């Protein structure tokens, strides 16, 4: 049985015919849209490499059936920069060596962006580590990741203050 769904992916509306309801958001992004920035690590919700924002909230796309998210608004790593201007979190990961091999990095960055909008961690490194615990980094770049998140948080707070002043 065929199912039609539509999703907004990085600001663009997309319609899909799914001939099999088993397709996850992760597989749809990678194999139908060729948005391969979202990584398949464990495929079981344990590593966080597949983290994307769905309706503004970070989730594991490997454990989300595409068909169940009909109508959702999706943001992936491909959609966070503005042209050549990196997202502040992307720039901070580069500035602070927040990665080595880079495989977990799109998930780390999407998770950090989601975390900042949740506004639970602020600039407390211990809370940032706790709030980022769903993203594993086998290279162990955690120290750089926490520094990058702290820096990006400070820059975004600063620019929000400027905007509201």
């Amino acid at each position: 049985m065929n199912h039609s769904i539509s999703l907004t992916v990085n600001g663009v509306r997309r319609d899909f015919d799914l001939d099999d309801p088993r397709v996850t958001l992760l597989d749809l992004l990678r194999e139908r849209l060729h948005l391969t920035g979202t990584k398949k690590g464990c495929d079981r919700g344990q590593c966080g490499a597949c983290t994307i924002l769905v309706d503004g909230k970070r989730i594991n796309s490997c454990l989300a059936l595409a068909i169940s998210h009909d109508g959702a608004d999706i943001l992936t790593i491909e959609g966070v920069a503005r042209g050549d201007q990196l997202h502040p979190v992307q720039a901070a990961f580069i500035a602070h060596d927040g990665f080595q091999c880079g495989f977990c990095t799109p998930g780390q960055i999407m998770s950090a962006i989601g975390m900042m909008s949740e506004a639970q961690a602020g600039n407390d490194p211990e809370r940032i580590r706790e709030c980022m615990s769903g993203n594993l980094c086998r290279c162990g770049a955690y120290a750089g990741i926490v520094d990058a998140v702290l820096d990006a948080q400070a820059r975004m707070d600063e620019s929000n203050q400027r905007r509201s002043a």
Partner: protein
Amino acid sequence: MKPFDYVRPGTVAEAIAAAAQPGAVYLAAGTNLLDLMKGGVSRPNRLVDVTHLDGLDRIERLADGSLRVGALVSNADLAHDSEFARSYPAVAEALLSGASAQLRNAATVGGNLLQRTRCTYFYDTASRCNKREAGRGCNARDGENRSHAVLGWSESCIATHPSDFCVPLVALDAVVEIEGRTGRREIALDELHRLPGNTPERDTALEPDDLIIALRLPPAARSFAAHARYLKVRERTSYAFAVVSAAAALRIENGKIAEARLALGGVAAKPWRARAAEDVLRSVAPTADAFRDAAWRALADAKPSGDNAYKIELARRILVRALTLAAAGTPARLPALPASPFASTSGAVHA
């Protein structure tokens, strides 16, 4: 993953009708179900997607002072609801100590109640497991069983229930609202999860087409807000299931405990309410001796199911420490590491 039909009902009545077919299961966020399906542990013929049903995502204060939480409210939304966290701090702390931020954003209240055991033999389809396949036998019984049950287990099954959320909920007398073929009914959360006996394949008291609609906390559940904690020992500080956990909630009046509520997690196939230990604490001063007596009482019937005798002593100590923390008072802000004995603001010396 085995192929399945997908249906997306528009109403609760349509959902129940769609789930009447053998092999049908409800799909909420799928954070546990899809994992089990990918591993071939769950093999449903049909998924009935309830995530688009209206009206199940609300948190409502009822006229009598109880709180009703729709089954589709996410773990994160519930934990971060400021009135909820103020009224039921141990429940919020338990929610935030579970899984990862990504999973908490997706996972639902109803789904959390129905999550399956994390016993590795249940997950490994090459192993024998009476819960996965009735009558197959149990490889955990003589296997790697240091994380298994010490209370309420049987020769058929020594698995534990993995939920953090359910532990303070059962202590606070939470009630589950269910819609089924025969209409609406409700049961105490304490009666939702079953002990294994000879039928460990049945986790709960639900019939296959029963749908959890909401969870309710009775008016009295708020009276513990000033002295309520959840404490969880795990093998890493974040993003791990409990080895042993405890919820402790006290109502203290004139320097004495007017009422205590205690429950343990990670020790049995259900969140384990420790009623006899609660009785020990009635009308006594909140002292270390009283807490130790209560902890001994709570574990009086515990016995190892394998290499896990350590969990009995660990559970006693976690209970004493959770009681000590609860007596000291609910912190104004949740610790950076929720429920962790290593949290810098945990406030108690080792019990």
